[in-house]
């Protein structure tokens, strides 16, 4: 301790305190955007992150190939069958779409259409703590990504919302993260609520649909989509399925536990919706 005082240890503590305050102020002022120092560190380390993610994916792939080859072949067969079925459905869908267009014209209804502008990005890192669920993506503000943009899978399943952007990286708060709050709707009953991450459910990979209307008759397996209320997030994005309906400990409100459709642990590539519009 004598050495500590003799060597100006107090000065080091003061520097640490000032650095803490500076970072705190930057975080507060640049809400949604990375502070300049974080931006530099994460920009510089982006290739390292990408390299490690690629190496780990390769090792996992090699492991799966060596030890699960039989399963992979079975899965490939199943996928081929599925592709055949989906191609058939696409053909049917195209026919239905054409018929639908004709009916719209006939009825004089204006078609509602959303134009999504996508940006593909790789998942380079996952949550580094047990207190949050976040993903780090390989693209950032230089690719036009902004805080608040929705992130989906290639099949349009909601992954989360961009929380912070740097030059060539961005952080996504996943749908199960406690900071997530998005309008949701149950398609079968049109019951609207607010999709919120819950700390206890986060570790189980689930989230809550809160503020359900009185009398909403939800059942297990009901599909939940984003409602698009407030026009902050696009509507119609698949979120997951209702697992069960519970009453709040206060006894005043009911909420549904939703199991997300997205497998957050195995995401490799995602798509950021940079822009969307609703044409009435």
């Amino acid at each position, binding site marked *: 301790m004598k050495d500590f005082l003799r060597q100006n240890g107090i000065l080091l503590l003061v520097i640490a305190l000032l650095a*803490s305050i500076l*970072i705190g102020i930057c975080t507060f002022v640049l809400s949604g955007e990375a502070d300049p120092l974080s931006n530099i560190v994460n920009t510089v380390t982006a290739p390292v992150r990408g390299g490690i993610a690629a190496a780990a994916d390769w090792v996992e792939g090699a492991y799966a190939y060596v030890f699960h080859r039989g399963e992979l072949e079975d899965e490939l067969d199943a996928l081929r069958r599925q592709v055949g079925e989906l191609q058939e459905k696409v053909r049917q869908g195209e026919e239905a779409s054409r018929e639908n267009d004709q009916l719209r014209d006939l009825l004089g209804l204006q078609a509602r259409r959303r134009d999504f502008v996508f940006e593909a990005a790789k998942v380079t890192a996952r949550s580094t703590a047990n207190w949050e669920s976040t993903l780090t993506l390989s693209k950032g503000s230089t690719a036009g990504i902004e805080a608040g943009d929705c992130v989906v899978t290639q099949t349009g399943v909601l992954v989360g919302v961009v929380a912070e952007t740097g030059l060539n990286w961005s952080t996504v708060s996943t749908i199960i993260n406690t900071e997530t709050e998005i309008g949701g709707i149950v398609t079968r009953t049109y019951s609207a609520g607010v999709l919120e991450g819950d700390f206890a459910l986060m570790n189980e990979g689930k989230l809550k649909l809160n503020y359900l209307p009185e009398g909403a008759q939800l059942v297990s397996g009901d599909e939940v989509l984003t409602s698009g209320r407030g026009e902050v997030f696009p509507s119609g994005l698949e979120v997951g399925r209702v697992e069960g309906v519970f009453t709040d400990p206060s006894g005043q409100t009911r909420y549904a536990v939703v199991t997300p459709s997205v497998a957050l642990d195995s995401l490799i590539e995602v798509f950021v919706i940079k822009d969307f519009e609703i044409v009435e």
Partner: protein
Amino acid sequence: MTRRDFIRKWLVYALGLLPVWLLDAYILPRYPLYGASPMLLPLAAAAVAVLEGAYSGTGFGLGVGLLWELAYPGGFGGLVFFLALAGMAMGAVSQYALSQSFPGCFICSAGVVGLLELLRVARGLLTNAAPLSALLEAAAPEFLWSLAWTPLVWLLFRYIYNRVGGTKLA
């Protein structure tokens, strides 16, 4: 010790921190054990503080805190001061009350990781994030899983200390 020796010594410590950080940030979170990923950075700060004493522990804690705040998402700055303060405390405790050995490092690591977990639980309670039981369910496995990595981190930094630590380069 000349300035050149001083820089060389801390460059080697920084190099030692590199694999710990890569493990902590990018590799271990991919393979959580019972849903928990360990925190290795406070263990590194504890190991160096125990080996090098209060002054160097403060400086290394400051560096580790900066790395934690800048390279990880969701920071608000507090960890820089916390780890610098913890480095000073652990260095002083190991010099006067414990010993510069693995048991001393283990006790210091348990102290700093435990305190971090308590602060997070307290923050969770203050912000009504979840009931106490749920917060403890997240904190306890993280605490235990982190401590399980103490021997590895200790061995790494003791190896560095044996090569360049203290005034060996002087």
